[in-house]
Each structure stands twice: as C-alpha cells, then as structure tokens.
C-alpha cells in the first residue's frame, strides 16, 4: 500500500471519534480493512460495533486490540475458519458486551432508521429463545389481526464504514448489488467510504452504473485506498487472501499471537 493511500485511510479513521457506534459490512461484502488498520494504530477506544448483519475479520481485529466495548450482531465468525478468535477470548474473559441478534432484525433495524421510524415489524422469530434475550424488543398483537408480531427498534449508527470498488469525484459510490451497504449509508448519521478507484464524471448519469450507486448526498467522505479491503476480498475486484486469514485465525487464539500478528500487519 502506498503512502497516499495510507494517509487517506488515516484521514477517514480520524473522522471516527472514540465511543462511536459503527455499522460494518460482513466479510463477503465491502470491508474497509485499511481504515480499520488506522483505527488499530490510534488505537480507537469504546467503539460499539454493529454487524450488518454479522461481524468477521474487521470486528475481531478491533475487539482483539481493545477498541470495542460492545457488539450487536447476528453472528461473529471468520467464514470457513469458524470462531472469531479474539472475540472468543474477550467473550470468555467477560471483557465485551454482546447484544445477540439475527440477520433480518439487523436489516430491519437499519431500515427503520432509513425510514425515520422508531421500529419495524419483523416476521418469524417468535418461537426463538432470542426474543427472551432481547428485552428491548416488543411483541404486540397485530392490530390488523394476524396475531402476535415482533417489533424491533431502529438502529441508527453514528457511522457507516465500508470499502467499495469505485467512486466518482462528486462522492457517488458504486456498490453494485451489495445494497446492504446502501441501507447502511441511508441509516447512519455519517457515512465514510474507502474505494479501490475514483473516476471523473458522474456515476448517477451513467445508465448502467446508477442503479448500483449510493448518491453523494449520503456520503460524508470518500478516500482512495487501493487494496483497502485486504486481506478480505472485494466483490468484482479481488478474492480473499485465505492464507493470511487462516494464519490470523490460528495466531489470534492467544493474546501474544494476536499482538504478534497485529504488529507485523500494521508494520507493513
């Protein structure tokens, strides 16, 4: 990664204050790992992470480095490598608060925020033990007569942070079919995006690109950070570096292993 890209990532990270709630994309979508590196280097403190709908490598790095007080997520996993090792340690040591959720509840909560609503109803879920865990959720009798139904409160993150393939110089960001990133941007108070590439022109005026584009009106800042999702993959751009992730999954099981991996990674 070259110097300007590093600077750009640092600048984006500097816009995220300690204590912020941040909604993050899942590993298979757009992860802003270069910005996460900058947060680790700072290091950021007291962050509250929201997985949209699950947390992976980004979340585990932040948790392992002690940046995170609380996570709200449907799952915490390193894809095929299973348990997120740093989170697993922190959970066992009771050093992190976990708000258990389920994927559609997170999507619904973000959509409530997108619509300026206090809550959204959600189908299903009622037979699950999750309802008892979530004392902030409500079950009401559907006033239209369909029986009991779950209501989940809006999730309005301070920051949406993700990495995308492309932005134009006006700040429009192309995310293709990864529209969970668009919901994140609509729902959050501020949206920060790193991208592989920036182009002149206006993506909203390009017939084909427009449909997969988040309008600049939702985006506070775009940073040009090539390779900014690595070692995760980025849709339409590159595959994950499974070797690095596997090495992390194994090393991060211990505090020392995590520190050593991190030292090496941040040092690059």
């Amino acid at each position, binding site marked *: 990664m070259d110097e300007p890209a590093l600077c750009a990532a640092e600048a984006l990270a500097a816009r995220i204050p300690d204590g912020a709630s941040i909604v993050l994309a899942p590993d298979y979508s757009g992860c802003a790992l270069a910005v996460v590196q900058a947060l680790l280097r700072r290091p950021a403190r007291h962050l509250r992470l929201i997985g949209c709908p699950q947390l992976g490598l980004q979340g585990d790095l932040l948790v392992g480095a002690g940046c995170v007080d609380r996570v709200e997520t449907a799952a915490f996993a390193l894809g095929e490598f299973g348990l997120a090792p740093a989170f697993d340690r922190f959970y066992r040591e009771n050093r992190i608060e976990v708000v258990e959720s389920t*994927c559609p509840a997170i999507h619904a909560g973000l959509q409530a925020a997108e619509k300026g609503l206090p809550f959204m109803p959600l189908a*299903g879920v009622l037979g699950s*033990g999750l309802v008892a865990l979530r004392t902030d959720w409500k079950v009401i009798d559907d006033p239209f007569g369909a029986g009991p139904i779950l209501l989940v409160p809006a999730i309005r993150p301070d920051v949406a942070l993700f990495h995308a393939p492309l932005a134009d110089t006006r700040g429009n960001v192309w995310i293709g*079919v990864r*529209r969970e990133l668009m919901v994140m941007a609509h729902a959050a108070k501020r949206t920060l995006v790193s991208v592989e590439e920036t182009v002149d022109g206006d993506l909203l005026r390009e017939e084909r690109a427009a449909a997969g584009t988040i309008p600049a009106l939702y985006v506070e800042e775009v940073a040009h950070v090539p390779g900014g999702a690595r070692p995760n993959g980025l849709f339409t751009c590159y595959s994950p570096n499974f070797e690095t992730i596997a090495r992390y999954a194994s090393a991060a099981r211990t505090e020392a292993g995590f520190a050593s991996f991190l030292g090496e990674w941040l040092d690059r």
Partner: protein
Amino acid sequence: MNRCTAITMIATIARLLEGLRHVAIGASSPIPAAGALLARERSAGRMVVSILGSERQNPFTDGGRELFDCAAQGRIDAFFLSGVQIDARANVNLLGLGAPPRLQKRFLGNFGAPYLASLVPHLILFRTDHGPRSLVEKVDFISAPGADGRWLVTDKALLRRRAGRLQLESVHAGETLASVQSATGFPLDAADTAPTTPTPDEATIALIRGPISVSVGEIYPAFETLMRE
C-alpha cells in the same frame, strides 16, 4: 470428516431437494451448498440456488435483506441449519452452551435461523459430527424451534422428526442402528434394523469432486481441497 462421508451427505441432501424451485444456502454451509448445486444439476434448469456470500451463485439484487424478504414472501423452498446442538425435538441451538445471556461457551451466533425457521417450508438440519454432545435431549438455547417433518442429515445417518421427535430414517454405509444410537444423546425410536442410506454412483461422485467442488470453492476453499485431494 472424510471425503466419502461428505459425499454421502451431499448426495442425501440433493435427494431431499428434488422437485423444489428455490433453495437458499446461508453462511458456513459448504456441504449444503454442494448438495443444492448437485440437485440443481439434476433439475433440468428448474431449480434456482442462492448461496449467501457467493458472487456467482446468487440471484439477489436487493442486498442482504432480500433472502429474508424472499423467504417471508414464500419464495424460498429450502434452507439449511447446523448448530452447536440439535435436540430430540429438532430444536437447533446456534448460539452456545450454558445459560444465556452469559454463555459458558459461545459459538458463532444465531445468523438468520430464528427468522427462517418458521418461514421456510423445507428447513433441513445438518451436522458433520454426529455425537452425543451435538445431538442432545434438550438444547441449552433454542435459536430455531423444531417442527414435524423436518430432516436432519449427519455424517452417520438421516433422521426426521415425526410425532414430535427425531427418528432414524437410514444409516450411512458403515454404520448400524446400534452405532448411531450410541452416538446420539437421546433415544431413537426405530425398528430393529435401519435401512442403509443410498450411496452415490461414480458419475455423481465425479460431479461432486469436479465442477461442484470448484463452485463451492469460490467461498469455501478448504472444502474444495478436501474434495480434490
């Protein structure tokens, strides 16, 4: 799990999916993904398979919520769940062991299970390590409640919930009623002998180890390695 058992599970899953129109695959599910792709191969183009996280096997264009919206619309026929525990009533626990909210051991999390459990008609359970600690009388936490008719495919056997409890349908080659019962944490109602799960033919095995493992390898490279070695 060895390759041979994985292939039996994949072929069994493909059988259960016959005739369905739309099968969706969630996270951490390489074997169901392979099973669904095998079923699609045999469907003469009538089956759509959606694999979460895949760029190539994914018909969705409305973001992460679409799978869930689609399920609530009744447009998803089958989905798969594994879990740290599955119990005699086919309840699934994906969250962890011990008493929530502070679990003794937390696993990955609930994913979409609490929602999909009641909205997808063919919810198929799977476990790649059939044992008394994974198949228990009663789960510590219900991520997804069970229901009659639900299938469970493991590395040892095929089970189905009838009259409120999981019962043995067939044992995989190399297993017996007794070996499966001793690996199961609850009593299985079964006849004296259990039929053997059909094993796939050479052509099917070649299909699984060839193009299907390549497709699945897009997001599960370790699975592809297991199939190829």
